[in-house]
């Protein structure tokens, strides 16, 4: 099968909208199709990776664990924008999974290399 470079661009916070959750579903399917999958987190998207989600009080299903499970699907390219973290008072220690932190410009270069960019 043709292998293409798919990037999922995540710019939205979790729980306020469903996009973070439904974008993860796309990631898992793309991985099942053995595509070259990467995830970019910038702007409010970096909040998706903030560890310690406790969703009982809002009666929604938490999906923090899914980020940790991505490695089992050979999805290991998680790129996070440094500036977006800083503007939100976050550092690498706050994130629930290991990621590659880079500048916006570097993230833009990775975007440019893709065959398909999906934004949620």
């Amino acid at each position, binding site marked *: 099968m043709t292998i293409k470079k798919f990037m999922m661009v995540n*710019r*939205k*916070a*979790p*729980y*306020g*909208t469903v996009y973070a959750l439904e974008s993860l579903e796309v990631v898992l399917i793309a991985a099942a199709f053995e595509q070259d999958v990467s995830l970019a987190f910038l*702007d*409010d998207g970096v*909040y998706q990776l*903030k*560890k*310690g*989600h*406790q*969703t*009982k*009080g*809002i009666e*929604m299903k*938490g999906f*923090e664990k899914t980020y940790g499970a991505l490695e089992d699907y050979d999805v290991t390219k998680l790129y996070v924008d440094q500036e977006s973290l800083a*503007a*939100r*008072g976050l550092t690498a220690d706050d994130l629930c999974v290991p990621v590659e932190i880079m500048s916006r410009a570097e993230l833009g270069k990775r975007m440019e290399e893709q065959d398909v960019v999906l934004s949620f």
Partner: protein
Amino acid sequence: MLNIVNKSPLDRGSLDACLQSAEPGAILLIEDGVYAATRGSAGEAKLKAAGGKFKLFALGPDMEARGIADRAMDGVTLVDYAGFVDLVAEYDTCQSWL
């Protein structure tokens, strides 16, 4: 007036709009709006710049869901849904800054 803000302060203009327009009163942050109340964020800076014009509240369950309940900035009071109801009852009117 109780002003209810449900959007992230860095993605949308609703918190800015509220801070710039509303008369002194209270602001309750809910949903993605709670990110404004996190220490060290650009949202916190916006809220602090408003000085003491507004009593600040944030919905605890929404902060917990997002893993930021332990990051609440000084000067914001966390409430649960019952507290949300009390706030709506306490102020004569409420406005959701959508």
